[in-house]
């Protein structure tokens, strides 16, 4: 029961990944692509958590911790670059 629910949840987040990737490909302006990159990083954090659940190893969560710290820095630098104009 619980395993089937977890597999369905992983499929939903894979669909979320694909749709954010589509927005990254289509995105007319660079700001759209930066938003899509941010969403892809957040979805990747939950994908890493699903991988940790599937492999049953807690050490995988450290990678998610690194992403939760670093996505913020990257987006702030990119936003400072955007303000001056592409």
């Amino acid at each position, binding site marked *: *029961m*619980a*395993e089937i*629910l*977890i597999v*369905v*949840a*992983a499929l*939903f*987040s894979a*669909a*979320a*990944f694909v*749709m*954010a990737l*589509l*927005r990254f490909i289509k995105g007319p*302006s660079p*700001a*759209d692509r*930066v*938003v*899509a990159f*941010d*969403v892809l990083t*957040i*979805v990747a*954090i*939950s994908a890493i*958590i*699903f991988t*940790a*659940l599937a492999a049953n190893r*807690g050490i995988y*969560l*450290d990678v*998610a*911790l690194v992403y*939760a*710290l670093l*996505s*913020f820095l990257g*987006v*702030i630098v*990119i*936003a*400072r670059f*955007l*303000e001056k*104009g*592409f």
Partner: protein
Amino acid sequence: MSELLDIIGALLLLAGSIFLFLGSLGLLRMPDVFNRIQAGTKATTLGTLLVLIGTAFIHPDWGFKLLLIGVFLLFTNPLSSQVLANAAHRSHVTKSKLTTLDQLAEDREENS
């Protein structure tokens, strides 16, 4: 007892990933950069937090790391979305016809 906790955690994981799905759907369907920021950042933050809580139900011994990830996410995610929206507003991104209210531009005109 452990079975019940597993099922509660799996249901929370399912709810969180449905929120992630809806956030990405909004990112794909919304007409404008600001609408996309709203859909893409709020819904996915809630979805990831629900995924973290569900994982803490399934594996209680990973609780500290999950709590740390959640705290960092709550600190950094709204901040980055606000900075991004401010930068997009300053670099004059084209708005769609449906976006009619722009109080930040009105405030800047009044102050200047």
